């Protein structure tokens, strides 16, 4: 993270930490509304170990986790107070494109609806403009994590 990309600092507010942190750039952010982030899994990254032995691919469940973490970024209010929430539902998730090592994944999440301590997001992962996965993710049990 550098001063050139001040938005990236919000990533530090996520409860997830490496090696289970799957967001590395924040490109656009409207707190409480939407986020556009990015992640690249380089060749040799642990997520490719035996997935698959002869054809390294980003696992679909890792992609879902990346989209959930991006949604977590969108939940952080403007003042930067950390928010803790838990993945509660994955709905209508469709995988439309394989993702290979080194491909830059754009993660987009937009709040669809919020009720109490739960929030549902429309999410999309894409590579070079092609949709790789899209669906809806609900984060629940949200609370300040300061």
């Amino acid at each position, binding site marked *: 993270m550098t001063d050139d990309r001040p938005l990236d600092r919000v990533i530090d507010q996520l409860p997830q930490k490496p090696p289970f942190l799957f967001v590395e750039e924040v490109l656009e952010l409207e707190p409480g509304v939407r986020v556009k982030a990015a992640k690249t899994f380089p060749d040799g990254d642990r997520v490719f170990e035996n997935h698959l032995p002869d054809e390294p691919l980003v696992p679909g469940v890792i992609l879902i986790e990346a989209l959930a973490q991006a949604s977590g970024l969108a939940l952080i209010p403007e003042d930067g107070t950390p928010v803790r929430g838990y993945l*509660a*539902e994955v709905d209508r998730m469709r995988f439309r494109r394989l993702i290979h090592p080194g491909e830059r994944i754009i993660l987009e999440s937009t709040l669809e*609806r*919020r*009720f*109490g*301590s*739960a*929030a549902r997001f429309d999410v999309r992962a894409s590579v070079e403009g092609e949709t790789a996965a899209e669906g809806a993710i609900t984060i*629940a049990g949200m609370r300040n994590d300061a």
Partner: protein
Amino acid sequence: MATDAQKTKVKEMLVKHLRLRMEPGEIADQAPLFGEEGLGLDSVDAIELVSGVEQAFSVVIGSEDEARKVFVNVDALADYLVERGGLS
């Protein structure tokens, strides 16, 4: 006041959209939708329920406050939908 037939439509929507493992007829008209004593729905279900009401009855619940007022039990939700023209 909603009729029994209208309440049945509400119960059918609840079972379908919330994927409840029960029959519509097993839901009492006045059973609380949320909390341990009733259907035991939670905030994630509430989000689904707002979507379900929109899809099934073309009624948009505009705010969380409004939702809290009508997501009390089947009676309250059915009466609200009759009032808003979603149930005829």
